[in-house]
C-alpha cells in the first residue's frame, strides 16, 4: 500500500548558513492511511519542528530541505505556497498544545470554525452554520448552539481544545497532527480529549500523528512510534514490540524513567547529561556522551537509521541485534 505521508531525509536548519543550528536532521517518517503514529522525545528534540515543516509553517530564516516530502501522492516540495494552502488546513490539519492561546481572542468560536469551512469548502449561509454546529456536536461540546457566539475567553481549556479540534476536522482531513494536545489540560480533561481524538480518528478514518511526552498515551493508542533525540529519529517501530524490546539505548532509558517501571526504587532512573545544543554536538552518535553502552566507534562515527528487529534504529550496537529474533517471536505470538 502506498503510504499517505512520506518524509525522507528532512532537515530544518536555523541561523547563519555557515554554522546552522539543525533542529531536525535526516528525518525519515512514513504514515499510512488510518494509522496512529506517535512521536515521542524530550523538549527540543525536533518533534514539533518536523510537523511545522510539513505544514509549511517554518519561516525564514528557517530552512527546510528534504529528499522527499509527499502527501497523498502529491509532492509538497514542488508546490507553490498557494497550492500548499489548499492542502494545509483541509487534508492535513493540526492542533496545538495550548488551547487557551490557540484561538483568536477577538473572534467568536463560531466565526473561527466557519472560517475554515468558508475558505476550503466555500460553504455559505445556513449550510455553513449547520455544518459548524454539526462539528461542535461531533467534538461533544454541550449546548453547541449557544456556544457558537461565545468568545474564547469564555470557554474552559478543555472546551477550547474541543473547538480547536472541531476546526481541525472541519474538512475531513486525511491526516491530523496533534502536537501535545493534552499537555496544558487538567488530568481528567486529558483523558477525555485523548478519547475524543481516538474516537474521531476511527470514525473519520484519519491518520493521526500524536506528538507527546507521554509514553503511556503512545503505548495505549498508537500503532507505531518514532522516538526522537536531538533532531533525529533514534528508533522507529511498531508499538507493542518497541515497548517490550527497545533496540535503542535512548528508548530503553526513556522507558525505564517511567514511574510505573521503577516500583520500589528510591529514585527514578535517569540518563545523565543533557541533549546536545548547537555548539556541543558530538561528531559521533549524538547520544554517545550519555549512552551507558557507548564504545569507541560510537564516539567517532554517526550511525544511520537501519532496519532493526522491530523497525529501524539509529545505533551501531542495537540492544536487540537480529531480525531473526523478531521472526521467532512473531511465530511464538
Amino acid at each position, binding site marked *: 500500500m502506498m503510504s499517505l505521508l512520506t518524509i525522507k531525509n528532512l532537515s530544518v536548519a536555523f541561523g547563519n548558513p555557515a554554522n546552522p543550528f539543525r533542529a531536525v536532521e535526516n528525518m525519515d517518517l512514513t504514515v499510512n492511511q488510518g494509522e496512529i503514529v506517535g512521536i515521542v522525545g524530550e523538549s527540543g528534540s525536533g518533534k514539533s519542528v518536523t510537523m511545522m515543516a510539513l505544514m509549511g509553517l517554518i519561516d525564514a530564516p528557517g530552512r527546510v530541505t528534504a529528499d522527499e516530502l509527499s502527501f497523498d501522492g502529491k509532492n509538497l516540495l514542488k508546490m507553490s505556497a498557494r497550492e500548499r*494552502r489548499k492542502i*494545509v*488546513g483541509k487534508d492535513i490539519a*493540526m492542533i*496545538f498544545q495550548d488551547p487557551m492561546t*490557540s*484561538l483568536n*481572542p477577538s473572534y467568536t468560536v463560531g466565526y473561527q470554525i466557519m*472560517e475554515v469551512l468558508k*475558505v476550503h469548502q466555500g460553504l455559505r449561509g445556513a449550510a455553513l452554520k449547520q455544518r459548524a454546529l454539526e462539528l461542535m456536536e461531533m467534538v461533544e461540546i454541550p449546548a453547541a448552539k449557544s456556544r457558537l457566539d461565545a468568545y474564547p475567553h469564555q470557554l474552559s481549556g478543555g472546551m477550547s481544545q474541543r473547538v480547536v479540534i472541531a476546526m481541525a476536522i472541519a474538512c475531513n482531513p486525511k491526516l491530523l497532527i496533534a502536537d501535545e494536545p493534552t499537555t496544558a489540560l487538567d488530568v481528567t480533561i486529558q483523558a477525555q480529549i485523548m478519547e475524543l481524538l481516538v474516537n474521531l480518528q476511527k470514525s473519520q478514518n484519519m491518520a493521526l500523528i500524536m506528538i507527546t511526552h507521554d509514553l503511556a498515551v503512545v503505548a495505549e493508542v498508537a500503532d507505531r512510534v518514532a522516538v526522537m533525540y536531538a533532531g533525529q529519529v533514534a528508533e522507529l517501530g511498531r508499538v507493542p514490540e518497541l515497548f517490550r524490546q527497545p533496540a535503542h539505548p535512548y528508548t530503553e532509558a526513556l522507558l525505564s524513567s517511567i514511574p510505573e517501571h521503577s516500583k520500589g526504587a528510591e529514585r527514578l532512573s535517569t540518563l545523565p547529561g543533557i541533549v546536545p545544543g548547537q555548539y556541543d554536538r558530538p561528531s559521533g552518535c549524538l547520544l554517545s556522551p550519555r549512552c551507558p553502552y557507548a564504545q569507541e566507534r560510537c564516539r567517532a562515527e554517526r550511525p544511520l537509521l537501519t532496519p532493526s528487529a522491530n523497525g529501524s534504529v539509529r545505533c551501531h550496537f542495537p540492544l536487540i541485534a537480529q531480525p531473526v529474533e523478531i521472526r521467532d517471536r512473531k511465530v511464538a505470538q
Partner: protein
Amino acid sequence: MLLFIFRRLSVLIPTFLGVTLLTFGLIRMIPGDPIEVMVGERTLDPVMHAEAMHRLGLDKPLPAQYADYLTNLLHGNFGESLITRDSVWHEFTTLFPATLELATAAMIFAVVVGLLAGVVAAIKRGSIFDHGVMGISLTGFSMPIFWWGLILIMFFSVKLGWTPVSGRLDLAYDITPRTGFMLIDSWLAERADPSANAGAFVDALKHLILPAIVLGTIPLAVIARMTRSSMLEVLREDYVRTARAKGLSPARVIFIHTLRNALIPVLTVIGLQVGTLMGGAVLTETIFSWPGIGKWLIDAISRRDYPVVQNGILIVATLIIVVNFIVDILYGIANPRIRHAK
C-alpha cells in the same frame, strides 16, 4: 456595555476640576494683568486701574474668583473675551472648524501612512524597508515641529513653488463659510459658481497639504512604531500560527487575525495623539498663519485674556477627554475581553 460607559464617565469629573484649577492658576502666575497689557507702555492711573479690575471682578481674592469661575461654568457660561467683548464660545466655534480641518487632515495622513508603514515593516522585519521606516519615524518623532514646518515651506513653497506659504485660501477667492471646512466650502462654492470660483477647491487643498503633513509627522511616527511592535508581538501568538495552519491566505492572516488584535494598543496611542495634535496645532497654526484656535489661544495668553485662556483651554481639554473616552469605548469594541470584564 452601559455600565462600562458609566464607569469610565465617573472618572472624568476629577479630570475636569484639575484642568480648571490648572488653567486658572497658571494664567494668573504670569506677571501682568489684562488692564496693564491693554494700556501698554503708557502710564496707568492706579485709581483707574483699580476701578477696571473691580469691574472685571479681578480684585477679589483668588479663591473667590475661582468660585465665580466655577459657578459660571456650571451655568454653562464661558464668559466673554476681555479684549473683543465677544463670547468665548462664539469665538471658539468660529475658529474651531479651521483647526478641526487641519487636525483631521493630519490624523488621516498619520493613520493611513502610519498603519501601512508599520504593518509592512513588521511583515518584512529586518529588511531595508523596515530599517528605513524605523529610522525615518525616529527622525520624525525627534524633529521640532516649527523647524520641520519651515524646512518644508522653504523647499516646497519657496524653492519649488508647489504650495502656498500660508493661510487657508488664496485672497482672490471670496467664499462664504457654510461648514467652516475650507475644503468643503470651496468645493460647494466652486459648484455653485464655477466661473468666479474656478480652482478654489484645489487651492484650498494646496493650502492644507503642508500644514497637515507637518502636524501629522509626530503622530505618524508614533503610530508607525507602535503598529510595528504591536504587529510583531501578535505575529508570534499561537492563534496566528493556528490561522496559518488553517490554510488561510497571508492577507487574511495579517489583516483579519493579526492586525485586529495588534490595533488595540495602536488605538490607545491614536487617542493620546489627539492631545499631541492640539499642542502641535498651536505651533503649526502659528507657522502657517492658519486661523484656528491654536493661534487664538497664543494671542489670548499674550493679552492676559483670562476668560479666553481658561475656557478655551477647558474646551480643548474637554475635546481631548471626549476623544479619549470614545477611544476607550472603541477599545471595548475591538477587544471583547475588556467589554466583558466585570
